[in-house]
């Protein structure tokens, strides 16, 4: 086995057997499981009874059929007087009383409670009342039931045609929605990878340097070999963790609820083009490599492992900015902020997939962003390697800038 292979094997074995790695992987798996089965888990611990709501209809129109009981709210229509129902509310036989009246040909409703309602319950009752208000308005026009239904449920058929040939064919809303969710997911994956593995590579190099094991290693291997072993080893470790997590996720999606959730995911995946998948994988891989290069370089700057978190801060802040910009794109992926950050190499991996998936972007823009990212990875690799050779055996104190200055001072 080559020296590079031995170093990678040692790093991989050491890390994959570490309790912290196992616990972290289990934690991710547990979090995913909890999210996926939240409603079932909630059902075990919280036995929520349906909200008891009394409706007093003081209008001449029949509205009772609109207020349909479901698992969250049970509507009843008492024939008692309003005062009597209010008394029952005070006795907490009801959670809320909705009194519907007519005022200037408009439906008005008063929601009376004795104990405050939860926001979610308030919103649900309000939407029932709003819908009843629409029905009431339509009925005032003396329309037939089918006419009223047509008005309420008719939707315009929208198609898009772009006459500019330079721009790719416009995406449907479904495609854009799928693009948003897929890109959101990719952004989260990149962000979590950076947070976990940037820290891992930085502290690993820093601890080898701090314990002087690095000096022993560099006698028999070149700094470039050591640098490469760290990047490849940690990438393999990340792939292992991802395989476990996504394998678990796949099994859950595929076999829980009769595959219902998997069908939903497939619907989203079917809306995504091959080019989108290619770009996502390319941005994902290159961004991860870029941050690992930076992590290894930063690790080589510190004198002891305790200083690792200090040097990592700039990279973590950059990733955080990219993540929040990507989050802002879920609401509106067409802003100037998103456009600018989709070209910055350290953030483009999180932001550009959003633009590709959720906007009608021209073909050339992702290519430019990807080329910029590739060039940055190459340039960072060359610079980092040259710097790494000089910094791994230089010990200094102070902040990142001071450390860089010291390395340059004693090695040039």
């Amino acid at each position: 086995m080559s020296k590079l292979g031995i170093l990678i094997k040692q790093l991989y074995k050491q890390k994959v057997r570490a309790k912290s790695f196992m616990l972290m992987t289990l934690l991710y798996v547990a979090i995913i499981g909890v999210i996926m089965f939240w409603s079932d888990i909630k059902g075990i611990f919280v036995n929520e009874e349906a909200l008891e709501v009394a409706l007093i209809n003081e209008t001449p129109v029949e509205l009772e059929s609109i207020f349909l009981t479901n698992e969250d709210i049970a509507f009843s229509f008492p024939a008692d007087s309003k005062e009597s129902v209010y008394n029952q509310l005070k006795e907490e036989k009801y959670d809320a009383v909705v009194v519907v009246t007519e005022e200037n040909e408009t439906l008005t409703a008063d929601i009376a409670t004795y104990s405050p309602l939860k926001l979610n319950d308030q919103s649900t009752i309000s939407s029932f009342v709003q819908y009843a208000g629409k029905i009431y308005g339509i009925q005032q026009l003396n329309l037939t039931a089918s006419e009223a239904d047509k008005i309420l449920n008719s939707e315009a058929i929208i198609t898009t045609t772009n006459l500019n040939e330079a721009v790719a064919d416009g995406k449907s809303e479904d495609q854009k929605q799928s693009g948003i969710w897929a890109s959101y997911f990719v952004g989260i994956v990149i962000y979590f990878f950076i947070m976990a593995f940037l820290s891992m590579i930085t502290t690993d190099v820093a601890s080898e340097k701090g314990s002087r094991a690095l000096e022993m290693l560099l006698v028999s291997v070149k700094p470039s070999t050591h640098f490469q072993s760290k990047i490849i080893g940690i990438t393999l470790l990340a792939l292992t963790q991802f395989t476990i997590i996504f394998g678990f996720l796949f099994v859950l999606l595929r076999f829980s609820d009769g595959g219902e959730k998997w069908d939903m995911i497939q619907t989203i995946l079917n809306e995504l083009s091959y080019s989108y998948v290619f770009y996502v994988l390319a941005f994902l891989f290159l961004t991860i490599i870029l941050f690992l290069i930076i992590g290894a370089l930063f690790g080589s700057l510190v004198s002891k492992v305790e200083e690792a978190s200090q040097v990592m801060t700039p990279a973590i802040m950059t990733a955080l900015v990219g993540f929040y910009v990507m989050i802002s794109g879920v609401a509106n992926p067409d802003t100037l902020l998103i456009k600018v950050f989709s070209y910055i190499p350290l953030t483009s991996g999180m932001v550009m997939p959003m633009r590709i998936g959720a906007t009608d972007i021209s073909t050339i823009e992702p290519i430019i962003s990807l080329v910029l990212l590739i060039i940055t990875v190459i340039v960072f690799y060359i610079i980092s390697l040259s710097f790494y050779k000089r910094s791994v055996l230089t010990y200094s104190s102070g902040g990142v800038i001071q450390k860089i200055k010291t390395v340059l001072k004693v090695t040039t």
Partner: protein
Amino acid sequence: MTLTLEHVVKKYKDFTAVNGLNFTIGRGEIFGLIGQNGAGKTTTFRMILDLQDQTSGTITWDGTPIKKINRDYLGYLPEERGIFPQMKVEEQLLFFGELRGMKRDELKKEIDFWIARFDLEEKRHEKAETLSKGNQQKVQLIASFIHKPQFLILDEPFSGLDPVNRDLLKNAILLLKDKGVTILFSSHQMDNVEELCDHLCLLKRGVSLFSGSLLDLKKQYGKTKLTLRTNVPLNELEKLAGVKGVKVDRDEYVLTLVDETFAESIFEVVSNGQYIEKFSLDYLSLDEIFKDKVGGNVE
């Protein structure tokens, strides 16, 4: 197989760490590189190991530039201990051995031999971080030569070791020498250097003050250290011809002579034809020469 340094210079922006260093170490020789902290010893080691580039000069191994030789020919024990704290002792030695091109089967035999020799059998399957400082040093020392290097650099190998372990280490170094390994080492404990080295180089602020055999260095000063146990009072000893200074060391006097030719006349005076318990004329110890060369005068 010899290591040769010729006119080696290492300059940084605002200071020169090593300035015009020359020495040669022959096969199977133990060579000491001594000097105060910051004298340039570690920088010299790093240049030999190709961990740093020299500004000028040449470093060759058997005529081949050191950069071009197989790195597995070299072994290195850094001044500060450098092992993987989380790795078990045997695992650690296997890793370093394999990294330097040794086959696993052959390695296991070597590991068995050295672990037994250094009395580490019980610690074999323990993590390095759980070992005492001395045992960690022993593990690292084994790691530095487990791959049977031709040339071994030991930077302060004795620091922190108790007398028993120091002897174990000395014996191991001598065994390696017998096997033909060329050893370059530094130590602040001059008695160790004196005991082990055939040749040495004395550095001061990057400049070589002396390079050659230990005996030649001692001959530069001559046999000027006279130790005696006598009833002659101190003030009389100080007045004797050829005596530069007298120091009382418990029940003995240590006289520093101008040169060894005065010894005979001093013997006549202090013995006065009678029995004398102790009269010993010696070279200066390396420790005294070091202090004189590097730090000031011998008292």
